[in-house]
């Protein structure tokens, strides 16, 4: 049984390690083989980019060698896939190889596409790549005051980032002693401040305390950099001195080029995670079109369920359990307060008021993450 995992991010790595432990005997006897293909020899802790952008984490802390995170029984190659052929059970890689498999898991993630809104990439800051996070920090470091506008594209990775950016930036400027020279204007695509209603209700009170103004039903259409105005699809405008963007995201180009899904999102069964029309092909994490949060925890919980299922299929011919839609998201509510939202397909979230202890747990998780990636936590 040749199992191919494409993508060495959080989902692919947790899946590979979990599966390798469950199939220890099969891997040893040669009955099963796990191969991972990734675009990089480095593994990035993506949530750390927020802290890099605020000058609270060094870039070095974001990375570990991917090979060091994987069980030794996993064959790891830096050789990204350039074409998927699910009907022939084959992929073609950048190095020119054709690789056959019996089962495949696609975990290639997604990417911010600020370039799809005219004027956005060159006139805003965001936190979605190492370069962008460093540029973010350089920009806010030299900002001396004015109107900060937060603008949010759809869909985006990490649904908690719009409030987190607002609250942490507020505290950043407060600590720099210039908060009286800075005003905040928060925009959001739907008719409230956050997709989760309890989070939106909490944000309303926090915004009132800080004097943060807001506009809902605001979907970016274009940015006029010369006049420092962001315009919405709904026909309104917001003037800015500093434009903080949460750009819209798309799946990876290779997914779209292989015609696996519009926008690069792979259609899968929301419980079994198999790609529509295939029993031996799966997708997890940001790669899927499941209408739930694009977040590391989603990839983590999907990877655990899928590892159990693939191991069970190999051992006894049937899967073990459904993925239940579980998501867990920390919400940084400033520099030293945080809360969290946890929910699944059947149970809505009920976030509690932020506390210092949850913030410090999040700080600890920034280190514990590496145990998660190894499939230990």
């Amino acid at each position, binding site marked *: 049984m040749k199992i191919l995992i494409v993508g060495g991010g959080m989902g692919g790595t947790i899946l590979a390690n979990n599966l390798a432990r469950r199939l220890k005997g099969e891997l040893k006897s040669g009955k099963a083989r796990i191969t991972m293909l990734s675009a990089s020899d480095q593994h990035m802790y993506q949530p750390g980019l927020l802290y890099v952008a605020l000058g609270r984490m060094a870039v070095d802390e974001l990375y570990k060698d991917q090979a060091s995170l994987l069980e030794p029984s996993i064959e790891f190659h830096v050789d990204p896939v350039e074409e998927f052929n699910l009907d022939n059970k084959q992929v073609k890689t950048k190095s020119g190889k054709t690789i056959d498999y019996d089962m495949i898991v696609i975990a290639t993630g997604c990417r911010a596409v600020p370039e799809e809104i005219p004027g956005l990439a060159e006139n805003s800051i965001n936190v979605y790549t190492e370069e962008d996070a460093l540029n973010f920090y350089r920009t806010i470091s030299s900002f001396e005051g004015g109107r900060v506008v937060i603008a949010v594209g*759809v869909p985006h990775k990490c649904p908690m980032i719009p409030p987190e950016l607002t609250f942490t930036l507020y505290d950043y400027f407060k600590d720099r002693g210039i908060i009286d020279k800075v005003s905040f204007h928060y925009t959001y695509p739907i008719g409230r401040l956050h997709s989760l209603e309890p989070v939106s209700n909490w944000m309303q009170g926090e915004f009132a305390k800080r004097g943060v103004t807001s506009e809902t039903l605001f979907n970016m259409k274009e940015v006029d950099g010369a006049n420092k105005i962001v315009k919405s699809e709904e026909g309104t405008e917001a003037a800015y001195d500093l434009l903080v963007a949460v750009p*819209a995201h798309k799946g990876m180009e290779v997914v779209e080029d292989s015609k696996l899904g519009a926008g690069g999102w792979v259609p899968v069964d929301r419980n079994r995670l198999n790609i529509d029309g295939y029993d031996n092909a799966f997708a997890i994490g940001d790669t899927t079109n499941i209408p739930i949060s694009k977040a590391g925890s989603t990839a983590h919980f999907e990877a655990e369920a899928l590892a159990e299922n693939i191991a069970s299929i190999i051992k006894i011919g049937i899967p073990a359990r459904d993925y239940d839609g579980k998501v867990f998201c920390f919400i940084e509510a400033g520099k030293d307060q945080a809360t969290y939202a946890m*929910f699944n397909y*059947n149970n809505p979230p009920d976030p509690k008021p932020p506390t210092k202890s949850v913030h410090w747990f999040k700080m600890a998780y920034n280190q514990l993450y590496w145990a998660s990636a190894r499939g230990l936590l």
Partner: protein
Amino acid sequence: MAERKLIDARGTYCPGPLMELIAGIKLIEVGDEVEVLSSDKGSGHDIPEWVNKVGHEIVSIEDVDGVWHVVVKKAK
């Protein structure tokens, strides 16, 4: 004949049915339609509010046993 894309957002809380519609409508051609299934009670109000404000068209909206079926035509 307009093509119709289905977004089954039943039982999902974040990003939620309206956000899924906003994302999904970017992926279809002008004149094509999206049908959103939502178990969020607010969808009967908040989806038409956005669709009307941005200038698309509500083709039909129906509550079937607690699930909203909202069909939207992309107008621009």
